[in-house]
């Protein structure tokens, strides 16, 4: 049993083959460095975000408290008041980044994301229906804490199911998936509008905050289920990386290389829908993260498809940073989803313009 590190003599630079016994893997340094840097940035931004507020806590104190060495009042402020919000933001960004990378690789289309495929809108339909249809009643108050996330989760899962069934024709074609997704997006948007026009003003306002995506008043009640879901879904997604390498070819080539196409496609779509549903039920549809982040990540790491881990971590950095900015730098506390949309849309345009210049 020997462990070896080998830099291939011929072939591409910046990669090393690692072999231990019969196990082997090819490491690409850029694809390790980017997530590592993103992780460091994520810890720092999270600590800053937890420290900022009406009662400021210094960053070293935040970090000390997080590892269990804080004193009484700091424990309460950091662990009970502020950490859950930041952790929900972090996990939501992680889930959306990974889901976006999965969808874009699967559909072989950089415009595929939970937003454009209608899944986040499906969650909005569920949540807005729960808020509006039960509004004002005591049932509504009961639902407010628990039922809205559950309704959003159901809405996202139902839309994901419809997307899959409608796009399925002895296998899922990426192009067809995007077209079906856009149709579902429109239907969902119309349903949300219809629900809002029939709603009481107070309910409509609450629903409106929800559908822009917000981290306000998040507690461990949202953070813990989300963390459990991601503890299952993220490792499964990372394990699918080898499959994605082949799935991103055309169907014929993928099957020629020995991929069980229908099974692989089903698994990838289910993982992406589940990740999106988990994220959206916790914080509402924070738009553009899943669309933009994988494209940013693939430009940083190089390679032919959005990297899963880097997309997840960069998504987490984006959501936590956006939340920090909306909470502290802006005069009014806006929902975080507005900022991600404001940053995301122009950034996407810039990427497209810059990409075209490179190729001509």
């Amino acid at each position, binding site marked *: 049993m020997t462990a070896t590190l080998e830099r291939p003599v011929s072939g591409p*630079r910046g990669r090393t083959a690692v072999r231990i016994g019969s196990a082997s893997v090819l490491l690409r340094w850029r694809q390790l460095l980017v997530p590592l840097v993103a992780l460091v940035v994520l810890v720092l931004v999270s600590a800053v975000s937890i420290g900022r507020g009406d009662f400021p806590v210094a960053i070293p104190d935040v970090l000390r408290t997080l590892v269990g060495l804080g004193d009484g009042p700091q424990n309460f402020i950091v662990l009970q008041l502020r950490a859950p919000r930041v952790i929900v933001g972090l996990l939501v960004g992680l889930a959306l980044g990974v889901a976006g990378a999965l969808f874009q690789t699967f559909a072989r289309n950089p415009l595929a994301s939970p937003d454009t495929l209608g899944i986040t809108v499906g969650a909005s339909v569920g949540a807005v229906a729960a808020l509006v249809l039960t509004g004002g009643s005591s049932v509504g108050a009961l639902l407010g804490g628990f039922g809205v996330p559950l309704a959003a989760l159901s809405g996202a899962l139902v839309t994901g199911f419809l997307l899959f069934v409608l796009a399925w024709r002895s296998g899922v074609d990426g192009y067809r998936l995007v077209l079906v997704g856009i149709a579902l997006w429109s239907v969902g948007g119309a349903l949300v509008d219809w629900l809002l026009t029939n709603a009481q003003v107070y309910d409509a306002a609450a629903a409106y905050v929800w559908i822009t995506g917000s981290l306000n008043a998040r507690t461990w009640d949202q953070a813990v289920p989300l963390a459990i879901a991601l503890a299952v879904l993220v490792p499964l997604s990372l394990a699918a990386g080898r499959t994605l390498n082949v799935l991103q070819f055309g169907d014929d*080539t993928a099957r020629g290389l020995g991929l069980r196409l229908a099974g692989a496609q089903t698994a990838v779509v289910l993982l992406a829908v589940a990740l999106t549903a988990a994220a959206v039920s916790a914080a509402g549809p924070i738009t553009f993260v899943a669309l933009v982040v994988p494209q940013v990540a693939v430009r940083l790491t190089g390679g032919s498809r959005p990297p899963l881990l880097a997309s997840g971590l960069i998504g987490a950095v984006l959501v936590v940073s956006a939340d920090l900015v909306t909470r502290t730098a802006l005069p009014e506390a806006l929902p975080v989803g507005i900022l991600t949309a404001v940053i995301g849309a122009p950034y996407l345009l810039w990427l497209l313009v810059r990409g075209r210049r490179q190729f001509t």
Partner: protein
Amino acid sequence: MTTHVLPDPAPASAPAAEPGRVRLAAEQVRLAYDEHVVVHDVDLELTDGSFTAIVGPNGCGKSTLLRALGRLLRPAGGQVLLDGRAIARTPTREVAKVLGLLPQSPVAPEGLTVADLVARGRHPHQSWVRQWSRDDEAVVAEALEWTDMAELADRPVDALSGGQRQRAWISMALAQGTDLLLLDEPTTYLDLAHQIDVLELVGRLHAERGRTVAVVLHDLNLAARYAQRLVAMKDGVLVASGTPAEVLTEELLADVFELEARIVPDPVTGTPMVVPVRRLR
């Protein structure tokens, strides 16, 4: 690395090519898209070490038949046998170790380098634990060398010319290390020089690496020049099979292609060469 490890085309202990042995066979295969039958109850056998070209007019079902041979299309009737075993009931990964295929005009993902493309050919030999063995590395390096793609290894596939791109895909098929190789119109969209280049490469795969090759081709003269055996199809039925000289006759061209033509010996190789006269109606 100066010496190449070559677990390819087959380990030294594996049985050598057995010219009579049937590797891939279509038995009474009927192929249909929805209700529309495209191929009618076709029998076809590919023997070990053979080089077969399937020819026929547009829409005759030749690509469809090739797709069925490569288990990309499930027959509505009959079956395809790989080494005597029903291909539909063989795990796709096992098939991928023996049978490689190159679809018509394959598309590589944006940004994928030639080296990464060729490395993907190792997929059926890899597992989650064993992702990049010494064998994988040696075979990929050798496939790049052998197809003259080593110097372009770091280039994105989408930045290559059409001819280079097709070489890269053939290099991937070589790295897959399969005994059998099916190619669907590998010369489409290439100029004549690059058509020759690609077919020379496929011919070398057959002659030097012992690959059993079946290829769908439009150009009859090139098919006659490179393949040992021609199979002609019309309206979803096999109408002729044999050596190029046996198949390419003036009667067959009139019948299958509705073309009046003279057959003369190719001045370079002596294989039959079609000189068209006019379209028959």
